[in-house]
């Protein structure tokens, strides 16, 4: 609605973060607008989780600027981020497994009527209809959420963020622990959120999950950006190659050639690197 036309919902410019003398992140630019999915890709230790923690308000950035709808911010807590409409769904921290679905749905934003009483019927009803609206048909919203499948649990967490007025969804590896079919459920859901006009930041190390849903791709390696592309600039294969670190594989092959026993392995690797290398630009 407001501001979505002019400034992006979230824009990071030249953001860096140090933990003591370890540089976790440097000079990272990232942006996401309404109705857009920005994918952050990278291997373990690439700096994805540091980046997400900055966006989510768990950590403060040390350098660069963080703007929300054109306004510079420095977030001190996840609560502040939530208040600005930035909701984060973590891979492991999405839900409380032993609690019923509806309690999970409203956790932290419980609906109350006088005297601090919970409005249980309302919350049950809303949970059911919200999930139904997202295509999840639950038999019983009173069942512990732990009895749902991994994909459904992620979806509930996402639906919750959407329901409570999130403008930007930050999804931390939502498909990492899921099977192919379950991952599909979550990805479809991400597309739905985008169509509702939300901005989505999707963190993943799987280019096959990122490519179909993403509008922009940010590839991180060792705390630096090694690629920032819109969808029309890059193919799925190029993205995969960038992710797998084609250049690094090539170098490893050279090193291995110097040892006799490693030569055979090096040839294999070189071949692999060749396959991965992005084709020359047309």
């Amino acid at each position: 609605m407001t501001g979505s036309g002019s400034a992006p919902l979230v824009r990071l410019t030249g953001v860096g973060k140090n933990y003591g003398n370890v540089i976790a992140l440097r000079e990272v630019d990232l942006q996401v607008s309404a109705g857009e999915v920005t994918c952050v890709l990278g291997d373990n230790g690439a700096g994805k989780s540091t980046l997400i923690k900055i966006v989510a308000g768990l950590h403060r950035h040390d350098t660069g600027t963080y703007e929300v709808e054109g306004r510079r911010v420095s977030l001190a807590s996840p609560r502040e981020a939530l208040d600005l409409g930035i909701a984060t769904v973590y891979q492991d921290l999405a839900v409380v497994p032993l609690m019923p679905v509806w309690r999970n749905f409203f956790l932290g934003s419980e609906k109350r009527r006088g005297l601090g009483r919970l409005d249980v019927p309302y919350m049950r009803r809303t949970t059911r209809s919200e999930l139904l609206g997202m295509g999840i048909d639950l038999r019983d919203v009173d069942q512990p959420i732990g009895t749902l499948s991994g994909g459904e649990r992620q979806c509930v967490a996402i639906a919750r963020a959407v329901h409570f007025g999130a403008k930007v969804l930050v999804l931390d590896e939502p498909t990492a622990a899921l099977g192919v079919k379950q991952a599909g459920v979550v990805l479809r859901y991400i597309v739905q959120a985008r169509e509702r006009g939300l901005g989505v930041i999707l963190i993943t190390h799987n280019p096959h999950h990122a490519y179909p849903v993403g509008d922009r791709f940010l590839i991180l390696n060792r705390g630096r950006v090694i690629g920032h592309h819109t969808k029309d600039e890059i193919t799925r294969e190029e993205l995969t190659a960038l992710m797998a670190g084609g250049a690094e594989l090539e170098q490893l092959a050279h090193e291995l050639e110097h040892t006799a026993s490693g030569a055979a392995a090096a040839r294999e690797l070189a071949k692999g690197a060749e396959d991965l290398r992005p084709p020359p630009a047309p």
Partner: protein
Amino acid sequence: MSQAVLKSAAAADERLARRSPLRRLAGRPEFGALLGAAVLFAFFSVVADAFLRASSFSTVLYAASTFGIMAVSVALLMIGGEFDLSAGVMVTTGALVAALVSYQLTLNVWVGVVISLVVTLGLGLLNGLLYVRTGLPSFIVTLGTFLMLAGANLGVTKLVTGNVASDSIRDMDGFDAARAVFAADLDVGGVRVNVTVLWWLLFVAVATWILLRTRTGNWIFACGGAPGSARAVGVPVARVKVGLFMGVAFTAWFSGMHLLFAYSSVQSGEGVGNEFYYIICAVIGGCLLTGGYGSAIGAAIGAFIFGMTSKGIVYAEWNPDWFKFFLGAMLLLATVVNLVVRRRAEPSR
């Protein structure tokens, strides 16, 4: 829109009807304990002649209530994912503070009662803050305060009175009124019922309401079940936990007042070891040791089982040497039942 919602809800209910009511009941945390209580009750009714008398039942209830009042708050704390090993001696501390303050300064006993409340709540706050600030397991933190309190109970009492028990405050101003509140014997249809039984039921009702019908209750479950997830959605985990420790302190104060006004003087070495019985009550009642699951009613049933067993053995005139064996067996059984419940709730990954 709302029509559609209602319709779909109705449709869901149809599907739900296929789950038998018994199965639904079996899903509740206190189910195992309820089953155990029923079996034990039937069992003792058969083997002990005196067990079924109204007066005997009142004795069982009294025994259950003195454990049950503490078990309620300990259960909440366990649902919130923490332990309090200082709960047992804190009862004694509460009683001693009131007794020493009133007697030594020759004050109305109600002054001692209020000061004791302040001190005990302060101790609960201390437990909570130590836990939150240090990040150490509550098991360790409260083990520390447990030992310190046990030592302070003895040390301060000895220092102040010169003996190891507090002086009797039976003849002091306000004693009778305080006794009426904390330790009165009521006549209910010709049967003496100790007022602690009523307090116990009240505490259980309040705790159940908090757990199931307030935001705080939701937060307690979340803090114990998955503190990281709770924090991520904005639940003030630290504050909830500190509050729970203070809840235990509050019931410890109450139990301490009962102890003092029922027996008018307090042995400084009392209370050690009771903390485990409170935890046992909560566990028998369906609380998970790992937190996030349980109920106040379950803890009450646990306390009832405890009271029934400990007195039932007396009514049945059995060799008391076996008391602890019986208790241990029951604890194991309860834990196994809970394990099964948990496995049902969390499908294997």
